[in-house]
């Protein structure tokens, strides 16, 4: 059951997106040369969504992941392409973790949408969890030299800043870098799910103050950012699969074959019942995992990882079935159902992959 705050966030997000984010206008943005819609970005900022995870002292609303997930679920449902949570939840976690010296102004600008910061971590030959990066930070007289390459930076097309992870000696570390920093080249592209990505290449000098964290602080912050990314991915996948199921139910009621609506065939009814079972199991787990995270419960990690694995499995199943039950129409670009399928496919490997989550889950459970 939702709290009053959550219900308000849900209603506001649902209303805004229903009224302003219909599938056709989304398609226009996706097929344009833009990586996101500036007007939507501004509107989302003015609704406070970007201030959600920051504390009131930081100029935020002081919400937890339970509240962020409520909005993220709507993002999944309406296939939002603006990387709001990539910035405020994931990069936000890296910048607000205890011991990280982020200037107040950076957080303020993030919370108001003036800038958006994207984590650039993945490297071509490493799993997303790997912290011994090939990218390097080397001390210089005035700061550091940062060299290396990062790939598949989700949301990187529109980012104004990057958080780049790198090794500082033996230590894992990360730095905050402006997109137009000298010596940073961004090769931006569209992704199959209508969002953007970037491969970046850098040999740049940064000031000492641009090094946000290193060593244990950096590792812990990274771990927290990953946990939150897993929750956002799960909530978004929940919204997407629920919407895919809804579309399937509506469509099979209308589509007549053999003289009767598809929905009257028992074989199809049972498959849709299976889809609903999956969606509701995920709904329970997403809420529980967010709650555990917000309360720092002892089973927090197990629940978050379980949530990531379960929603990834379920979202794949449900969106695949959605296409199958629709038939040919859902294989086209002009119909929404295939786009849910593409979005959840991208979420599967975003920051915490399903398989990694499963492996870590085993380690966490066996250590308990």
């Amino acid at each position, binding site marked *: 059951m939702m709290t009053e705050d959550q219900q308000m966030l849900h209603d506001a997000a649902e209303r805004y997106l229903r009224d302003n984010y219909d599938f056709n206008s989304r398609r226009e943005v996706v097929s344009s040369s833009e990586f996101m819609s500036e007007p939507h970005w501004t509107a989302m900022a003015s609704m406070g969504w970007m201030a959600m995870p920051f504390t009131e002292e930081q100029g935020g609303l002081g919400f937890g992941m339970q509240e962020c997930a409520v909005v993220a679920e709507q993002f999944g449902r309406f296939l939002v392409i603006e990387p709001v949570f990539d910035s405020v939840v994931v990069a936000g976690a890296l910048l607000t973790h205890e011991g990280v010296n982020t200037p107040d102004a950076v957080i303020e600008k993030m919370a108001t949408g003036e800038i958006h910061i994207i984590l650039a971590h993945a490297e071509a030959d490493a799993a997303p969890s790997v912290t011994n990066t090939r990218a390097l930070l080397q001390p210089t007289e005035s700061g550091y030299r940062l060299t290396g390459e990062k790939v598949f930076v989700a949301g990187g097309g529109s980012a104004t800043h990057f958080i780049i992870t790198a090794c500082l000696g033996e230590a894992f570390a990360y730095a905050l870098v402006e997109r137009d920093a000298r010596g940073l080249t961004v090769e931006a592209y569209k992704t199959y799910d209508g969002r953007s990505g970037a491969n970046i290449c850098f040999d740049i000098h940064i000031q000492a103050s641009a090094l946000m964290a290193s060593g244990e602080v950096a590792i812990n912050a990274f771990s927290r950012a990953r946990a939150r990314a897993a929750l956002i991915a799960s909530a978004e996948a929940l919204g997407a699969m629920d919407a895919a199921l809804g579309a399937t139910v509506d469509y099979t009621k209308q589509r007549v074959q053999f003289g009767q609506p598809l929905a009257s065939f028992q074989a199809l009814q049972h498959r849709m019942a299976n889809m609903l079972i999956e969606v509701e199991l995920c709904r329970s787990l997403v809420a529980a995992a967010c709650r555990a995270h917000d309360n720092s419960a002892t089973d927090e990690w197990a629940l978050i990882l379980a949530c990531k*694995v379960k929603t990834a499995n379920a979202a794949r199943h449900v969106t695949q079935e959605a296409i199958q039950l629709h038939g040919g129409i859902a294989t086209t670009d002009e119909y929404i159902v295939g786009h849910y399928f593409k979005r959840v496919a991208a979420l599967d490997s975003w920051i915490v992959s399903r398989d990694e989550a499963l492996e870590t889950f085993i380690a966490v459970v066996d250590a308990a």
Partner: protein
Amino acid sequence: MTDYKLFRQGVRDFLALELSPELVRAGELTTSVFSDFEAALKWHKILHNKGWVAPEWPKEYGGTGWDINQRYIFQEECKLANAPSIVMMAIQMLGPMLMHYGTDEQKSFYLPRILSAEDIWCQGYSEPGAGSDLASLKTSAVRDGDDYVVNGTKIWTSMARHSNRIFCLVRTNKEVKPQAGISFLLIDLNSPGITVTDIVSLDGQIEQCQVFFQDVRVPVANVVGNENEGWSVAKYLLEFERGGHNFTIDIKKQLAKLRCQAQSVKARNGKSKLQDPVFRHRLAEAEIEAMALEQTELRIKGTLSSGGNPGALSSLVKCAGTELGQRFNALSVDAVGQAATPYHPDSLNPRYAGKTPAPGYALTAMAEYINNRAATIYGGTAEIQRAIIAKQILKL
């Protein structure tokens, strides 16, 4: 505010005191819904003496007055302590139904006898020709003076060989549409004209029976509710059968047992089955499903305690819970491998102390795997549950 910690401790203390090794053994060796009958009866009487045999019943009828969380804690602690399962048909279904539809005479006569186990009841719904399509049942009750004359047969009557009474759905009107001509009838199994035959299940044991009625005379006073209104009585009952169960408790127990089994099975290199990465991954996927199920049951519990109706979510949980249970059974059989294969019924008798062909941890694996096929069939098949979901939630 109830102090649940204190309550849990009270339950634990009681279980520690009253559960004899033999009863625990019966609990450990339970391979289906039912435990060894002798042990179950002993345990039933102990619970009755304590006043805890029917936690779901209102206090005025001999229940406990516990809230939903206390009932959950009680079930959980019983399961963890390996208490045997008592025969639940009357407590779970007939009792609530009598409280709702029964006459004062019926209530005051039958309810105390259910609590004390003076009466053991079995359920007479299914017939050879009426399974999921229950309304097509044919066992007939024809009025003759102050009696009905009953003819026909009931099947899958679990525990009928140990029972002295049966609650039945019978046809009292053949002229109307099927649901409208059914009555709910209480029948003494010692009445002349009744034969009970055993059905041997796949595990070689007898739990199920078939009951035959030939010109059996049953007093008209034994109808519950009005004549020809048995269908609504039965539907009320089915909700109890579906909603009253917490799958998470069973699943957690299964998981703990499975981990134990997998740790006991050692390969020549000294590694246990639990350290086998292929097996461990399969287990982890099932563990994750169990967490999703648990959180869904907690959601339902929240709805119930705030006075809401979870509706068809209980169908959802029935599908997910029973199918996950079967998945754990399969993992169990895979974990112990060939040690699951010896057929040796004595091994599963709580009073047997002799040699067993398979190690202790493997004794129940195959019987549980076999017997739990029934879970997706009884109480409304998995297909019926999906039909309910399709109709009530998806409005298909």
